[in-house]
Protein backbone atom coordinates (compact mmCIF):
# COMPACT_ATOMS: atom_id res chain seq x y z
CA UNK A 1 0.00 0.00 0.00
CA UNK A 2 1.48 3.25 -1.14
CA UNK A 3 1.15 6.11 1.32
CA UNK A 4 0.86 9.55 -0.25
CA UNK A 5 -0.14 11.21 3.02
CA UNK A 6 1.96 13.97 4.51
CA UNK A 7 1.58 15.84 7.77
CA UNK A 8 2.12 19.55 8.27
CA UNK A 9 2.07 20.73 11.87
CA UNK A 10 -0.29 17.95 12.84
CA UNK A 11 -2.59 18.45 9.88
CA UNK A 12 -2.68 15.38 7.69
CA UNK A 13 -3.10 15.90 3.95
CA UNK A 14 -4.21 12.96 1.80
CA UNK A 15 -1.51 13.89 -0.65
CA UNK A 16 1.10 16.65 -0.85
CA UNK A 17 -0.59 18.62 -3.62
CA UNK A 18 -2.15 21.96 -2.74
CA UNK A 19 -3.22 24.94 -4.77
CA UNK A 20 -1.13 28.11 -4.69
CA UNK A 21 -2.87 31.12 -3.23
CA UNK A 22 -4.36 33.52 -5.73
CA UNK A 23 -4.36 31.14 -8.63
CA UNK A 24 -7.36 29.04 -7.67
CA UNK A 25 -9.84 31.55 -6.28
CA UNK A 26 -11.56 29.81 -3.43
CA UNK A 27 -11.86 26.66 -5.45
CA UNK A 28 -15.26 27.11 -7.07
CA UNK A 29 -14.01 28.06 -10.56
CA UNK A 30 -11.67 25.09 -10.86
CA UNK A 31 -14.15 22.70 -9.27
CA UNK A 32 -15.66 22.60 -12.76
CA UNK A 33 -12.46 20.85 -13.88
CA UNK A 34 -11.09 18.93 -10.92
CA UNK A 35 -12.55 17.03 -8.03
CA UNK A 36 -11.46 19.08 -5.02
CA UNK A 37 -11.81 15.95 -2.89
CA UNK A 38 -8.65 14.68 -4.51
CA UNK A 39 -6.45 17.58 -3.43
CA UNK A 40 -4.27 17.64 -0.33
CA UNK A 41 -5.49 21.15 0.43
CA UNK A 42 -7.02 24.20 -1.17
CA UNK A 43 -5.20 27.41 -0.36
CA UNK A 44 -7.46 30.39 -0.94
CA UNK A 45 -6.76 33.78 -2.48
CA UNK A 46 -5.38 36.23 0.08
CA UNK A 47 -8.11 37.75 2.24
CA UNK A 48 -7.92 40.97 4.24
CA UNK A 49 -10.00 42.48 7.01
CA UNK A 50 -11.92 44.64 4.52
CA UNK A 51 -12.55 44.38 0.75
CA UNK A 52 -9.57 45.46 -1.37
CA UNK A 53 -10.12 46.71 -4.93
CA UNK A 54 -6.67 45.66 -6.13
CA UNK A 55 -4.64 47.39 -8.83
CA UNK A 56 -5.69 48.93 -12.14
CA UNK A 57 -5.45 46.82 -15.32
CA UNK A 58 -3.47 45.48 -17.12
CA UNK A 59 -2.79 43.19 -14.20
CA UNK A 60 -1.23 40.23 -15.99
CA UNK A 61 1.24 39.77 -18.80
CA UNK A 62 3.11 36.89 -20.32
CA UNK A 63 6.88 36.41 -20.07
CA UNK A 64 9.15 33.70 -21.45
CA UNK A 65 8.10 30.53 -19.63
CA UNK A 66 6.11 32.48 -17.07
CA UNK A 67 4.00 35.51 -16.33
CA UNK A 68 3.88 38.67 -14.28
CA UNK A 69 0.88 39.59 -12.16
CA UNK A 70 -0.03 42.64 -10.19
CA UNK A 71 -3.51 41.79 -9.01
CA UNK A 72 -2.84 43.79 -5.88
CA UNK A 73 -4.69 41.37 -3.62
CA UNK A 74 -8.19 42.25 -4.71
CA UNK A 75 -10.45 40.44 -2.26
CA UNK A 76 -13.97 40.71 -0.91
CA UNK A 77 -12.86 40.99 2.72
CA UNK A 78 -13.08 38.49 5.54
CA UNK A 79 -16.83 38.77 6.10
CA UNK A 80 -17.89 37.71 2.63
CA UNK A 81 -15.14 35.13 2.67
CA UNK A 82 -16.45 33.49 5.84
CA UNK A 83 -20.03 33.56 4.64
CA UNK A 84 -19.46 32.33 1.12
CA UNK A 85 -16.09 30.70 0.51
CA UNK A 86 -15.59 28.64 3.66
CA UNK A 87 -19.03 26.98 3.43
CA UNK A 88 -18.35 26.17 -0.21
CA UNK A 89 -15.03 24.51 0.62
CA UNK A 90 -16.55 22.63 3.56
CA UNK A 91 -18.51 20.61 1.01
CA UNK A 92 -15.31 18.86 0.07
CA UNK A 93 -13.08 16.41 1.80
CA UNK A 94 -9.92 18.48 1.55
CA UNK A 95 -8.03 20.71 3.92
CA UNK A 96 -8.75 24.43 3.88
CA UNK A 97 -5.85 26.82 4.16
CA UNK A 98 -6.70 30.50 4.23
CA UNK A 99 -4.14 32.93 2.83
CA UNK A 100 -4.15 36.15 4.85
CA UNK A 101 -2.99 39.57 3.73
CA UNK A 102 -2.90 42.98 5.34
CA UNK A 103 -1.34 46.41 5.36
CA UNK A 104 -0.37 46.45 9.03
CA UNK A 105 0.25 43.91 11.77
CA UNK A 106 -3.19 44.78 13.14
CA UNK A 107 -4.84 44.01 9.79
CA UNK A 108 -3.32 40.55 9.74
CA UNK A 109 -4.19 39.85 13.36
CA UNK A 110 -7.77 40.95 12.88
CA UNK A 111 -8.26 38.42 10.07
CA UNK A 112 -6.44 35.69 11.96
CA UNK A 113 -8.54 36.29 15.06
CA UNK A 114 -11.73 36.23 13.04
CA UNK A 115 -10.70 32.92 11.48
CA UNK A 116 -10.01 31.35 14.89
CA UNK A 117 -13.63 30.26 15.18
CA UNK A 118 -13.97 29.16 11.56
CA UNK A 119 -13.59 25.60 10.34
CA UNK A 120 -10.33 26.13 8.53
CA UNK A 121 -7.29 23.91 8.92
CA UNK A 122 -4.36 26.25 8.58
CA UNK A 123 -3.49 29.88 7.93
CA UNK A 124 -0.95 31.04 5.41
CA UNK A 125 0.33 34.51 6.14
CA UNK A 126 1.32 36.35 2.99
CA UNK A 127 4.12 38.71 3.98
CA UNK A 128 5.59 38.57 0.55
CA UNK A 129 3.24 40.10 -1.97
CA UNK A 130 5.27 42.47 -4.12
CA UNK A 131 2.20 44.16 -5.57
CA UNK A 132 0.90 46.28 -2.74
CA UNK A 133 2.49 49.43 -1.41
CA UNK A 134 2.26 48.98 2.34
CA UNK A 135 2.52 45.73 4.23
CA UNK A 136 2.97 42.75 2.06
CA UNK A 137 6.55 42.36 1.06
CA UNK A 138 7.96 44.83 3.60
CA UNK A 139 7.46 42.23 6.34
CA UNK A 140 8.87 39.57 4.10
CA UNK A 141 12.17 41.25 3.36
CA UNK A 142 13.29 42.15 6.86
CA UNK A 143 14.01 39.26 9.25
CA UNK A 144 13.23 41.30 12.36
CA UNK A 145 9.87 42.45 11.01
CA UNK A 146 9.12 38.90 9.90
CA UNK A 147 9.86 37.44 13.30
CA UNK A 148 7.79 40.14 15.00
CA UNK A 149 4.73 39.70 12.80
CA UNK A 150 4.95 35.94 13.13
CA UNK A 151 4.90 36.28 16.92
CA UNK A 152 1.91 38.63 16.81
CA UNK A 153 -0.06 36.47 14.44
CA UNK A 154 0.64 33.39 16.52
CA UNK A 155 -0.98 35.11 19.51
CA UNK A 156 -4.29 35.25 17.71
CA UNK A 157 -4.13 32.09 15.66
CA UNK A 158 -6.15 29.07 16.61
CA UNK A 159 -4.82 27.09 13.65
CA UNK A 160 -1.25 26.26 12.67
CA UNK A 161 0.45 29.17 10.94
CA UNK A 162 2.34 28.98 7.65
CA UNK A 163 4.54 31.97 6.92
CA UNK A 164 4.88 32.53 3.18
CA UNK A 165 8.30 33.82 2.25
CA UNK A 166 9.41 36.15 -0.52
CA UNK A 167 12.22 35.10 -2.86
CA UNK A 168 13.28 38.73 -3.25
CA UNK A 169 15.86 38.49 -0.52
CA UNK A 170 19.62 38.12 -0.26
CA UNK A 171 19.55 35.07 1.98
CA UNK A 172 16.41 32.95 2.25
CA UNK A 173 17.83 30.99 5.19
CA UNK A 174 17.84 34.13 7.34
CA UNK A 175 14.18 34.66 6.58
CA UNK A 176 13.28 31.03 7.14
CA UNK A 177 15.00 31.10 10.51
CA UNK A 178 13.29 34.35 11.45
CA UNK A 179 9.88 32.81 10.73
CA UNK A 180 10.81 29.76 12.76
CA UNK A 181 12.09 31.92 15.62
CA UNK A 182 8.79 33.80 15.58
CA UNK A 183 6.93 30.56 16.10
CA UNK A 184 5.81 29.67 12.60
CA UNK A 185 4.57 26.10 12.34
CA UNK A 186 5.39 25.79 8.65
CA UNK A 187 6.96 27.98 5.99
CA UNK A 188 5.94 28.13 2.35
CA UNK A 189 7.94 29.49 -0.56
CA UNK A 190 8.40 30.96 -3.03
CA UNK A 191 6.05 33.83 -3.59
CA UNK A 192 6.67 35.69 -6.82
CA UNK A 193 9.95 37.27 -7.97
CA UNK A 194 9.54 40.96 -8.67
CA UNK A 195 9.78 41.68 -12.38
CA UNK A 196 8.98 44.28 -15.00
CA UNK A 197 8.07 44.32 -18.66
CA UNK A 198 8.09 47.29 -21.00
CA UNK A 199 6.02 47.64 -24.15
CA UNK A 200 8.62 49.29 -26.38
CA UNK A 201 6.17 50.36 -29.07
CA UNK A 202 3.86 52.14 -26.67
CA UNK A 203 6.72 53.15 -24.36
CA UNK A 204 4.81 52.11 -21.28
CA UNK A 205 4.96 49.40 -18.68
CA UNK A 206 3.10 46.24 -19.63
CA UNK A 207 1.43 46.31 -16.20
CA UNK A 208 -0.36 49.36 -14.83
CA UNK A 209 1.47 48.77 -11.54
CA UNK A 210 4.86 48.99 -13.35
CA UNK A 211 6.24 45.92 -11.56
CA UNK A 212 4.61 42.57 -11.03
CA UNK A 213 5.30 39.20 -9.52
CA UNK A 214 6.87 36.61 -11.77
CA UNK A 215 5.68 33.02 -11.58
CA UNK A 216 5.50 29.89 -13.70
CA UNK A 217 8.03 27.34 -14.98
CA UNK A 218 10.64 30.04 -15.63
CA UNK A 219 11.16 30.61 -11.90
CA UNK A 220 11.41 26.95 -10.91
CA UNK A 221 15.22 26.77 -10.55
CA UNK A 222 15.22 29.72 -8.14
CA UNK A 223 12.36 28.16 -6.19
CA UNK A 224 14.00 24.73 -5.93
CA UNK A 225 17.22 26.32 -4.73
CA UNK A 226 15.44 28.36 -2.04
CA UNK A 227 13.32 25.43 -0.89
CA UNK A 228 16.47 23.34 -0.58
CA UNK A 229 18.26 26.07 1.38
CA UNK A 230 15.28 26.79 3.62
CA UNK A 231 14.59 23.13 4.31
CA UNK A 232 18.18 22.74 5.46
CA UNK A 233 18.02 25.84 7.64
CA UNK A 234 14.94 25.11 9.74
CA UNK A 235 13.31 22.18 11.50
CA UNK A 236 9.70 23.09 10.67
CA UNK A 237 8.20 21.68 7.47
CA UNK A 238 8.43 23.50 4.18
CA UNK A 239 5.79 23.84 1.46
CA UNK A 240 7.48 24.25 -1.91
CA UNK A 241 6.15 26.09 -4.92
CA UNK A 242 7.23 28.10 -7.93
CA UNK A 243 6.75 26.83 -11.45
CA UNK A 244 5.37 23.40 -10.65
CA UNK A 245 3.51 22.12 -13.72
CA UNK A 246 4.08 18.36 -13.71
CA UNK A 247 4.47 15.52 -11.24
CA UNK A 248 8.19 15.53 -12.03
CA UNK A 249 8.40 19.16 -10.98
CA UNK A 250 6.57 18.40 -7.75
CA UNK A 251 8.89 15.49 -7.00
CA UNK A 252 11.86 17.78 -7.59
CA UNK A 253 10.61 20.02 -4.77
CA UNK A 254 9.93 17.06 -2.49
CA UNK A 255 13.45 15.75 -3.08
CA UNK A 256 14.79 19.23 -2.36
CA UNK A 257 13.17 19.03 1.04
CA UNK A 258 9.55 20.17 0.73
CA UNK A 259 6.92 18.19 2.62
CA UNK A 260 4.12 19.45 0.39
CA UNK A 261 3.84 21.48 -2.81
CA UNK A 262 1.57 24.12 -4.27
CA UNK A 263 0.54 24.47 -7.88
CA UNK A 264 -0.12 27.99 -9.10
CA UNK A 265 0.38 29.35 -12.58
CA UNK A 266 0.10 25.86 -14.08
CA UNK A 267 -3.64 25.94 -13.38
CA UNK A 268 -3.92 28.73 -15.92
CA UNK A 269 -2.61 26.66 -18.80
CA UNK A 270 -3.80 23.32 -17.53
CA UNK A 271 -6.91 23.41 -15.33
CA UNK A 272 -6.40 19.72 -14.57
CA UNK A 273 -2.81 20.30 -13.37
CA UNK A 274 -3.34 19.73 -9.64
CA UNK A 275 -5.04 16.36 -10.06
CA UNK A 276 -2.64 15.21 -12.76
CA UNK A 277 0.25 16.05 -10.47
CA UNK A 278 -1.27 14.15 -7.55
CA UNK A 279 -1.84 11.13 -9.80
CA UNK A 280 1.61 11.45 -11.33
CA UNK A 281 3.27 11.41 -7.92
CA UNK A 282 1.40 8.23 -7.09
CA UNK A 283 2.44 6.67 -10.40
CA UNK A 284 6.08 7.62 -9.77
CA UNK A 285 5.94 6.02 -6.35
CA UNK A 286 4.50 2.84 -7.83
CA UNK A 287 7.10 2.69 -10.56
CA UNK A 288 10.00 3.35 -8.22
CA UNK A 289 8.54 1.18 -5.46
CA UNK A 290 8.39 4.02 -2.96
CA UNK A 291 6.09 3.07 -0.08
CA UNK A 292 5.99 6.37 1.70
CA UNK A 293 6.70 9.91 0.55
CA UNK A 294 9.00 10.26 3.54
CA UNK A 295 11.50 8.17 1.59
CA UNK A 296 12.03 10.89 -0.98
CA UNK A 297 11.39 14.10 0.95
CA UNK A 298 14.78 15.77 1.18
CA UNK A 299 16.54 12.73 -0.27
CA UNK A 300 18.95 14.76 -2.40
CA UNK A 301 21.67 16.19 -0.23
Amino acid at each position, binding site marked *: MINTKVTLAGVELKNPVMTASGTFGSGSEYSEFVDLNKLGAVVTKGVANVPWP*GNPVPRVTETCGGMLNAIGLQN*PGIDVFCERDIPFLKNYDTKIIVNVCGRSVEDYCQVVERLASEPVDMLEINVSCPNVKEGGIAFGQDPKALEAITKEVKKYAAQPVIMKLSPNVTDITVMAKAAEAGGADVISLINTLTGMKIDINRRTFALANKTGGMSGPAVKPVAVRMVYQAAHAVKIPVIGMGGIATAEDAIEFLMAGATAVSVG*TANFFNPYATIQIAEGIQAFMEKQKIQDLGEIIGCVE
Partner: protein
Amino acid sequence: MSKKTKEICTVVDQECIGTDIYSLWIQTEEIASEAVPGQFVSLYCKDQSKLLPRPISLCQIDREKGRLRLVYRVTGQGTGTEEFSRLQPGDTIPVLGPLGNGFPLGEAKGKKVLLMGGGIGIPPMLQTAKETEADVTAVLGYRDQLFLDKEFQDYGKVYVATEDGSAGTKGNVLDTVREEQLAADVIFACGPKPMLRAIKAYALEHQIPCWISMEERMACGVGACLGCVCQSTEVDDHSHVHNKRVCKDGPVFLSTEVEL
Protein backbone atom coordinates in the same frame (compact mmCIF):
# COMPACT_ATOMS: atom_id res chain seq x y z
CA MET B 1 -23.64 28.35 -17.11
CA SER B 2 -22.16 26.22 -19.86
CA LYS B 3 -19.88 23.36 -18.95
CA LYS B 4 -16.22 24.09 -19.67
CA THR B 5 -13.61 21.64 -20.87
CA LYS B 6 -10.06 21.78 -22.06
CA GLU B 7 -9.60 19.65 -25.13
CA ILE B 8 -6.97 19.03 -27.74
CA CYS B 9 -8.96 19.96 -30.84
CA THR B 10 -8.26 19.01 -34.42
CA VAL B 11 -8.00 21.66 -37.10
CA VAL B 12 -10.57 21.09 -39.82
CA ASP B 13 -9.67 23.99 -42.02
CA GLN B 14 -7.75 27.22 -42.00
CA GLU B 15 -7.88 30.07 -44.47
CA CYS B 16 -6.32 33.50 -44.67
CA ILE B 17 -9.25 35.88 -45.31
CA GLY B 18 -7.46 39.23 -45.21
CA THR B 19 -4.13 40.77 -44.35
CA ASP B 20 -3.12 38.94 -41.16
CA ILE B 21 -6.73 37.74 -40.65
CA TYR B 22 -7.28 34.00 -40.42
CA SER B 23 -10.40 31.88 -40.29
CA LEU B 24 -9.95 28.63 -38.40
CA TRP B 25 -12.45 25.77 -38.10
CA ILE B 26 -11.80 23.31 -35.31
CA GLN B 27 -13.49 20.06 -34.37
CA THR B 28 -14.69 20.03 -30.77
CA GLU B 29 -17.99 18.31 -30.04
CA GLU B 30 -17.99 19.16 -26.35
CA ILE B 31 -17.29 22.84 -26.55
CA ALA B 32 -19.48 23.36 -29.62
CA SER B 33 -22.43 21.68 -27.96
CA GLU B 34 -22.28 24.02 -24.97
CA ALA B 35 -21.41 27.25 -26.72
CA VAL B 36 -23.61 30.31 -27.28
CA PRO B 37 -22.95 33.47 -29.33
CA GLY B 38 -20.71 36.05 -27.68
CA GLN B 39 -18.76 33.47 -25.74
CA PHE B 40 -15.10 32.87 -26.38
CA VAL B 41 -12.50 30.14 -26.08
CA SER B 42 -8.91 30.22 -24.86
CA LEU B 43 -6.43 28.94 -27.38
CA TYR B 44 -3.07 27.68 -26.12
CA CYS B 45 0.31 27.64 -27.82
CA LYS B 46 2.34 24.50 -28.36
CA ASP B 47 5.44 26.54 -27.63
CA GLN B 48 6.15 25.99 -23.96
CA SER B 49 7.57 29.45 -23.48
CA LYS B 50 4.12 30.94 -24.19
CA LEU B 51 1.86 29.75 -21.44
CA LEU B 52 -1.05 32.12 -21.21
CA PRO B 53 -4.31 31.72 -23.12
CA ARG B 54 -5.19 33.63 -26.26
CA PRO B 55 -8.89 34.45 -25.83
CA ILE B 56 -10.70 34.30 -29.17
CA SER B 57 -14.43 34.85 -29.70
CA LEU B 58 -16.67 32.32 -31.35
CA CYS B 59 -17.41 33.46 -34.88
CA GLN B 60 -19.53 30.47 -35.82
CA ILE B 61 -20.87 27.50 -33.90
CA ASP B 62 -21.75 24.41 -35.91
CA ARG B 63 -23.41 22.27 -33.27
CA GLU B 64 -24.41 19.62 -35.76
CA LYS B 65 -20.88 18.88 -36.93
CA GLY B 66 -19.40 19.78 -33.54
CA ARG B 67 -17.25 22.55 -34.95
CA LEU B 68 -16.27 26.07 -34.06
CA ARG B 69 -15.09 28.83 -36.32
CA LEU B 70 -12.59 31.33 -34.98
CA VAL B 71 -11.53 34.42 -36.88
CA TYR B 72 -8.46 36.11 -35.53
CA ARG B 73 -5.73 38.56 -36.32
CA VAL B 74 -2.02 37.73 -36.20
CA THR B 75 -0.66 40.52 -34.01
CA GLY B 76 2.99 40.24 -34.88
CA GLN B 77 6.04 38.08 -35.41
CA GLY B 78 6.81 35.48 -32.80
CA THR B 79 3.34 35.78 -31.25
CA GLY B 80 0.97 33.00 -30.31
CA THR B 81 -1.47 33.99 -33.04
CA GLU B 82 1.36 33.62 -35.55
CA GLU B 83 1.84 30.09 -34.28
CA PHE B 84 -1.87 29.42 -34.79
CA SER B 85 -1.74 30.79 -38.32
CA ARG B 86 0.61 27.98 -39.32
CA LEU B 87 -1.86 25.27 -38.32
CA GLN B 88 -2.90 22.92 -41.10
CA PRO B 89 -5.92 20.63 -41.32
CA GLY B 90 -5.24 17.61 -39.12
CA ASP B 91 -2.99 19.52 -36.72
CA THR B 92 -4.14 19.90 -33.14
CA ILE B 93 -4.58 22.84 -30.82
CA PRO B 94 -5.41 22.93 -27.11
CA VAL B 95 -8.66 24.81 -26.46
CA LEU B 96 -10.49 25.72 -23.26
CA GLY B 97 -14.12 26.70 -23.43
CA PRO B 98 -16.74 27.80 -23.85
CA LEU B 99 -15.94 30.79 -21.67
CA GLY B 100 -17.86 33.87 -20.57
CA ASN B 101 -21.53 34.72 -20.74
CA GLY B 102 -22.47 35.58 -24.32
CA PHE B 103 -24.98 38.11 -25.64
CA PRO B 104 -28.43 38.11 -24.01
CA LEU B 105 -30.31 37.05 -27.13
CA GLY B 106 -33.60 37.01 -25.22
CA GLU B 107 -33.41 40.76 -24.78
CA ALA B 108 -33.48 41.20 -28.54
CA LYS B 109 -36.14 38.66 -29.40
CA GLY B 110 -38.66 40.06 -31.85
CA LYS B 111 -37.16 43.53 -31.67
CA LYS B 112 -35.09 45.73 -33.95
CA VAL B 113 -31.51 44.92 -33.06
CA LEU B 114 -28.41 46.73 -34.22
CA LEU B 115 -25.28 44.58 -34.24
CA MET B 116 -22.15 46.68 -34.36
CA GLY B 117 -18.71 45.21 -34.86
CA GLY B 118 -15.41 47.00 -35.26
CA GLY B 119 -12.29 45.39 -36.72
CA ILE B 120 -11.44 42.15 -35.03
CA GLY B 121 -14.62 42.67 -32.95
CA ILE B 122 -16.68 41.72 -36.00
CA PRO B 123 -16.31 37.91 -35.82
CA PRO B 124 -18.44 37.30 -32.68
CA MET B 125 -21.29 39.28 -34.27
CA LEU B 126 -21.69 36.69 -37.02
CA GLN B 127 -23.04 33.86 -34.84
CA THR B 128 -24.94 36.48 -32.84
CA ALA B 129 -26.60 37.67 -36.04
CA LYS B 130 -27.48 34.11 -36.92
CA GLU B 131 -29.05 33.25 -33.60
CA THR B 132 -30.82 36.48 -32.76
CA GLU B 133 -34.49 36.00 -33.51
CA ALA B 134 -35.04 39.62 -34.38
CA ASP B 135 -34.95 42.20 -37.11
CA VAL B 136 -31.17 42.28 -37.51
CA THR B 137 -29.13 45.14 -38.93
CA ALA B 138 -25.38 44.70 -38.88
CA VAL B 139 -23.02 47.65 -39.01
CA LEU B 140 -19.43 46.65 -39.56
CA GLY B 141 -16.48 48.98 -39.18
CA TYR B 142 -13.13 48.43 -40.88
CA ARG B 143 -9.91 50.32 -41.31
CA ASP B 144 -9.77 49.53 -45.02
CA GLN B 145 -9.97 45.89 -46.08
CA LEU B 146 -13.37 44.18 -45.63
CA PHE B 147 -13.77 40.63 -44.31
CA LEU B 148 -16.75 38.51 -43.26
CA ASP B 149 -19.15 41.24 -44.43
CA LYS B 150 -20.75 39.10 -47.14
CA GLU B 151 -21.51 36.36 -44.64
CA PHE B 152 -23.71 38.69 -42.59
CA GLN B 153 -26.07 39.18 -45.53
CA ASP B 154 -27.80 35.87 -44.78
CA TYR B 155 -29.04 37.21 -41.47
CA GLY B 156 -30.14 40.77 -42.13
CA LYS B 157 -29.22 44.13 -43.59
CA VAL B 158 -25.52 44.91 -43.64
CA TYR B 159 -23.88 48.34 -43.59
CA VAL B 160 -20.20 48.96 -43.76
CA ALA B 161 -17.96 51.80 -42.61
CA THR B 162 -14.30 52.17 -43.51
CA GLU B 163 -11.84 54.63 -42.06
CA ASP B 164 -10.32 55.32 -45.44
CA GLY B 165 -13.70 55.51 -47.18
CA SER B 166 -12.81 52.72 -49.59
CA ALA B 167 -16.17 51.04 -48.94
CA GLY B 168 -19.46 52.13 -47.38
CA THR B 169 -19.51 55.17 -45.12
CA LYS B 170 -16.20 56.94 -44.61
CA GLY B 171 -15.75 56.87 -40.85
CA ASN B 172 -16.84 54.59 -38.06
CA VAL B 173 -19.91 52.50 -37.31
CA LEU B 174 -21.70 55.39 -35.64
CA ASP B 175 -21.13 57.53 -38.70
CA THR B 176 -23.01 54.85 -40.62
CA VAL B 177 -25.79 54.72 -38.06
CA ARG B 178 -26.25 58.47 -38.38
CA GLU B 179 -25.84 58.58 -42.13
CA GLU B 180 -28.28 55.73 -42.69
CA GLN B 181 -30.52 56.83 -39.82
CA LEU B 182 -30.61 53.35 -38.40
CA ALA B 183 -32.99 52.97 -35.48
CA ALA B 184 -32.84 50.18 -32.92
CA ASP B 185 -34.53 48.82 -29.81
CA VAL B 186 -31.41 47.00 -28.70
CA ILE B 187 -27.70 47.25 -29.48
CA PHE B 188 -25.10 44.47 -29.30
CA ALA B 189 -21.54 45.60 -29.99
CA CYS B 190 -17.96 44.41 -29.99
CA GLY B 191 -14.84 46.30 -30.96
CA PRO B 192 -12.04 48.55 -29.77
CA LYS B 193 -12.56 50.54 -26.57
CA PRO B 194 -12.98 53.97 -28.22
CA MET B 195 -15.75 52.53 -30.40
CA LEU B 196 -17.48 50.95 -27.41
CA ARG B 197 -17.21 54.21 -25.51
CA ALA B 198 -18.89 56.07 -28.37
CA ILE B 199 -21.61 53.45 -28.70
CA LYS B 200 -22.27 53.53 -24.97
CA ALA B 201 -22.75 57.32 -25.17
CA TYR B 202 -24.96 57.00 -28.25
CA ALA B 203 -27.12 54.36 -26.55
CA LEU B 204 -27.44 56.47 -23.42
CA GLU B 205 -28.40 59.49 -25.45
CA HIS B 206 -31.02 57.53 -27.39
CA GLN B 207 -32.10 55.48 -24.38
CA ILE B 208 -31.38 52.21 -26.15
CA PRO B 209 -30.42 49.22 -24.03
CA CYS B 210 -26.95 48.27 -25.17
CA TRP B 211 -24.68 45.29 -24.48
CA ILE B 212 -21.00 45.46 -25.26
CA SER B 213 -18.29 42.82 -25.35
CA MET B 214 -15.11 43.83 -23.54
CA GLU B 215 -11.46 42.83 -23.81
CA GLU B 216 -8.82 42.50 -21.14
CA ARG B 217 -5.55 40.61 -20.56
CA MET B 218 -6.30 37.21 -19.09
CA ALA B 219 -4.43 34.52 -17.23
CA CYS B 220 -6.94 31.88 -16.14
CA GLY B 221 -9.92 32.71 -18.34
CA VAL B 222 -12.27 31.11 -15.83
CA GLY B 223 -12.70 33.73 -13.14
CA ALA B 224 -10.13 32.53 -10.62
CA CYS B 225 -7.14 34.87 -10.93
CA LEU B 226 -8.83 38.30 -11.01
CA GLY B 227 -6.46 39.34 -13.76
CA CYS B 228 -9.05 40.54 -16.25
CA VAL B 229 -11.27 42.90 -14.34
CA CYS B 230 -13.06 45.96 -15.61
CA GLN B 231 -14.47 48.66 -13.39
CA SER B 232 -18.12 48.25 -12.65
CA THR B 233 -20.45 51.05 -11.69
CA GLU B 234 -21.93 48.99 -8.86
CA VAL B 235 -20.17 46.87 -6.26
CA ASP B 236 -20.04 43.45 -7.91
CA ASP B 237 -21.24 40.46 -6.00
CA HIS B 238 -18.25 38.26 -6.57
CA SER B 239 -15.52 40.57 -5.33
CA HIS B 240 -17.55 43.12 -3.38
CA VAL B 241 -15.52 45.90 -4.94
CA HIS B 242 -16.16 47.83 -8.15
CA ASN B 243 -14.67 45.18 -10.39
CA LYS B 244 -16.14 42.62 -12.73
CA ARG B 245 -14.25 39.79 -14.35
CA VAL B 246 -14.32 40.05 -18.13
CA CYS B 247 -13.72 36.32 -18.52
CA LYS B 248 -16.50 35.16 -16.22
CA ASP B 249 -18.96 37.98 -15.52
CA GLY B 250 -18.44 39.13 -19.13
CA PRO B 251 -17.17 39.53 -21.74
CA VAL B 252 -20.64 40.95 -22.50
CA PHE B 253 -21.85 43.67 -20.16
CA LEU B 254 -24.76 46.04 -20.15
CA SER B 255 -23.06 49.25 -21.20
CA THR B 256 -24.23 51.13 -18.13
CA GLU B 257 -22.80 48.48 -15.83
CA VAL B 258 -19.17 49.20 -16.65
CA GLU B 259 -16.78 52.15 -16.81
CA LEU B 260 -15.05 52.46 -20.14
